[in-house]
């Protein structure tokens, strides 16, 4: 046992423990308010979840990647089933009370399957891409991985949970990239989404179509593929408006608020304004641990989940923010290193997918608190309160630990 402990990847374990401790401290502080909130004792619950997560982490790190690879389709299938069940019997919670993202047993909410689905998608994608041994070069070859991601993506989007759905897309692109797909193909795959976004301005959309024509001529894909890409982009321009109308009002207002938070400072804009005020008033050294007035007086919304990072910014200041960002950067860099040294493509893809998922969560969550990105309620790894996501992160780190151990055992050395 001790020898096994000595052989684990110490940097990854160290950064993970550091983030868990930092996150728990932030969560404890988030509960210290002058106004009674449900967040008061939530750090104790999180402590239980951390115990659960660490147990899962140890268990997964004891499992061979081969076994994981073998089990992947069953895990994936099971998760899809869970998502379907959630869609039927799911309940809402917290800020998104109208959605159905929680799975409840006997009225007790046990978890959000979407968080675990992210991990399942990573495993499934890794399995498919590793089995091919070659990078997809045509749009047709991108279709199967697109489906692997697309099905859970659609199920999550129907909940609706836009934030998590975006993470699936990010995972797809990250893993396609790591599997060696050419950037030009990635751009073509992404082009309908870009077209959709730009369709809100006719001029921008027109320019994009022209640029796309140029790119197609330059990159010379198959003719029918090029036509399909063009058709998809044009279609996006046409359905943009119906699509906008299909968005839930809270999603629309979130997007609009991102563009101009002062539109409705009391309602939708409240989150982002209060978040920025909390962060900005923190200054260089912050107001002191547990002493942030914005948090204490409940000006900061969802301070224990989506907006936990402003608590760090307000109470520990710029220094605290830099420490957190450095820890996150270190985590991602370590995961990249493990992915690079993995003994087989499946392990490598898994770890890179995990890195991509965590990266997306970190960038999106931290970015929205300083108004760099629109508000999508996705949690900050190791900080935000939430059992399912903590479990998913622990499992992901467990897999990475095992992969690191495997690569060291197979005699990988720096070269």
């Amino acid at each position, binding site marked *: 046992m001790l020898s096994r402990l000595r052989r684990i990847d110490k940097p990854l374990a160290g950064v993970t423990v550091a983030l868990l401790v930092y996150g728990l401290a932030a969560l404890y502080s988030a509960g210290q308010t*002058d*106004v009674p909130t449900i967040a008061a004792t939530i750090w104790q619950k999180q402590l239980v979840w951390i115990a659960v997560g660490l147990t899962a982490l140890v268990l997964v790190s004891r499992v061979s990647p081969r076994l994981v690879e073998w089990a992947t389709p069953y895990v994936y299938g099971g998760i899809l089933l869970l998502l379907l069940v959630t869609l039927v019997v799911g309940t809402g919670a917290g800020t998104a009370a109208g959605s159905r993202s929680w799975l409840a047993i006997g009225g007790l909410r046990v978890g959000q399957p979407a968080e675990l689905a992210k991990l399942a998608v990573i495993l499934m994608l890794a399995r498919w891409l590793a089995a091919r*041994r*070659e*990078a997809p070069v045509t749009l047709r070859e991108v279709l199967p991985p697109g489906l692997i991601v697309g099905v859970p993506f659609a199920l999550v989007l129907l909940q609706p949970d836009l934030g998590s759905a975006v993470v699936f897309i990010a995972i797809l692109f990250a893993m396609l*990239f*790591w*599997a*060696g797909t050419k950037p030009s193909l990635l751009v073509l795959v992404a082009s309908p989404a870009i077209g959709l976004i730009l369709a809100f301005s006719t001029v921008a959309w027109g320019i994009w179509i022209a640029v796309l024509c140029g790119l197609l001529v330059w990159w010379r894909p198959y003719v029918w593929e090029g036509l399909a890409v063009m058709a998809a982009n044009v279609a996006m321009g046409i359905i943009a408006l119906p699509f906008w109308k299909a968005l839930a009002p809270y999603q629309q207002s979130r997007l609009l608020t991102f563009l101009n938070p002062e539109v409705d400072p*009391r309602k939708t804009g409240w989150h982002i304004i*209060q978040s*920025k*005020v*909390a*962060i*900005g*008033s*923190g*200054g*260089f050294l912050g107001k002191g641990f547990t002493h942030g*007035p*914005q948090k*204490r*007086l*409940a*000006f900061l919304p969802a301070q224990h989940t989506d907006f936990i990072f402003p608590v760090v*910014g307000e109470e520990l*200041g*710029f220094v605290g*923010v*830099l420490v957190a*960002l450095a820890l*996150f*950067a270190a985590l*991602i*860099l370590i995961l*990249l290193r493990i*992915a*690079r040294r993995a003994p087989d*493509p499946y392990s*490598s893809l898994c770890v*890179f997918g995990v*890195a991509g998922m965590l*990266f997306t969560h970190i*960038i999106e969550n*931290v*970015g929205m608190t*300083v108004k*760099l990105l629109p508000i999508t309620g996705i949690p900050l790894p190791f900080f935000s309160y939430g059992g399912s996501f903590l479990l998913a992160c622990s499992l992901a780190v467990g897999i990475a630990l095992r992969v690191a151990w495997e690569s060291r055992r197979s005699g990988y050395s720096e*070269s």
Partner: protein
Amino acid sequence: MNPYHPHLLDRRLGVARGILWVTMGVLAAAFFRAQILEHGKYQLQSETNRLRPIPLPAPRGVILDRNGRVLAENVPGYTVSLLPAEEVTLRRTLGRIAPIVRLDSAGIDRVLTRYRRVPYLPALVLADAPFDMVSALEERRLLFPGLLIQPEPKRYYPDSSLAAHLIGYVGEVTETERAQRRLAPVRLGGLVGKDGLERQYDDSLRGGDGVRFVEVSALGHVVREAGAAPTLKPVPGTPLHTALDLDLQRYIGQIFPAGQRGAVVALNPNTGEVLALYSAPAFNPNAFVGGVNPEYWRRLNESETHPLLNRAIQARYPPGSTWKLAVAAMALKRGVVTFRSRMPIPCRGGLAYGNRYFRCWEPGGHGSLTLSEAIAQSCDVYFYQLGLKLGLTSLLEDANQWGLHARTGIDLPGETVPEFPSGTEYFDRVYGPRRWTTAVTLNLAIGQGENAQTLVDMVRLYQMLASDGRSRSPYVVHPAGTGETGVDMNLTAAQLAGLRQAMINVVQQGTGRSAGRVGAMSIAGKTGSAQNPHGPAHGWFIGFAPADKPEIVVGAIVEHAEHGSGVAPLVARVIARYLGADTTVARTIRLALPTDTAPHARDILPGAPADTASVRDTAPLDTVPPESTRAVTPPPHR
């Protein structure tokens, strides 16, 4: 080619690391900008988020009488207000709070109106909440976001309506008042003096409001009452020491005939100190504290008796026979007569002048009288002739010079100017040139005609007679300068002594016998009756004592008291009380005397051509000029 070849992986690893560094760099830059570069801006926003300014009203200065007894003080009270929030939230909270504070929908609208005027300060719901209401609210505190219950000094007048007109009352400052320079520093919703001393000395009584900050949560609940930010302490108002004798004022309140309207003014003739100033009916100034009940305010304003009117300084009455002393003094000063002079025509109950017959109040006539006797008997016929002898011009000139057509300058707001012709051009203006004759002199000489004085003006005239012949502006609060004297009557000491002796005779044997002698001390004074179209004549009595060296001069008017002799005991008792003599003697004296006011002049030849304007009596003046009541500004409804 194997896409997982180490070189290819290294290349992709480089790209991935590059993306990571760039995005982390962007995030760090964004936080640097928010936390370092724009820290000040967000710090300010954070403070305004959580701190709400609460004005701390300064306790008003207490008002004390000459012996340090309290006329107006402050007692602890509670105000209920709501911290500023969005109007919808306020309205909702008000709806929930309404049953407890007994607020109807009109009241809710009033609160919201006040909130809209100053959206950054707490909106006052209830200015003076009783204790049980405060505890009921405290119990349900969590239900009412932004509820603020603040102990605030509350104005209290221990003697209630006793000196209401003199002390005045306080009320919330109005928009129009704040437009004045004087009241510009008062915050909206602040209290200012509305009448009497409270208004006159508002600047020093008011003090300066302080401010404190409370910390509120996002829901608007007050989280921390103290210590959130430094508090600016209120500066209490300065105490006001008045010359008033509360004991005397209370005594007047006791003995003033119940249900009657009128006023009493007591001065120290040698200084001008106002010892007492009483007006009846009065109002309850405590009812104005914390916002007057609209119903009470309406009753005060619509009442026939005009309780808000200060009858001592704001109401004008024809002076009647009390005026005769003025005419006698003028004649003596100008050397027209001496105390022993007799008039050519003895009193046979009237005097024919021009086309009219001017009657004496005593139909039987007084016979031939000296000036002293004429004053004592208040003989109209004597004074008709004295007026003619003095001449209209001299009479008008002296009366104007002695300030009988000007405010006394008493330090109370709203003093009325007496009505009196400023010169003969007055008659030209009113009747037209040459459409009047010197017959007007006859009326003016006995205190009728175009003459209506305030009580305080007449009391000052007697103050001059009771002192060294110089006027002293009456004051409630000792002015900063040394007691300089005003106009001088230019009477010799002998003349003054003679006039006083004549007034002693009034009391001892003349029309004012009901005043009587009080103990060993003699009271001097003069009665008067003022005819008015509303009913029986108003009774005057102005007296002073001790007659040889006066220490107090007291004037009283009682509306519809028939005549001055009925008022004389009132004044006598006040004087006796002040000088420490036995008042029971004065109380027992009750004399019914005929009126000493001349009946209207009668035409000698009925149907004779109209010399009308000249000889007809000007209609007796309304004692209560409607405009003086309207001049009182209503306080804003709370």
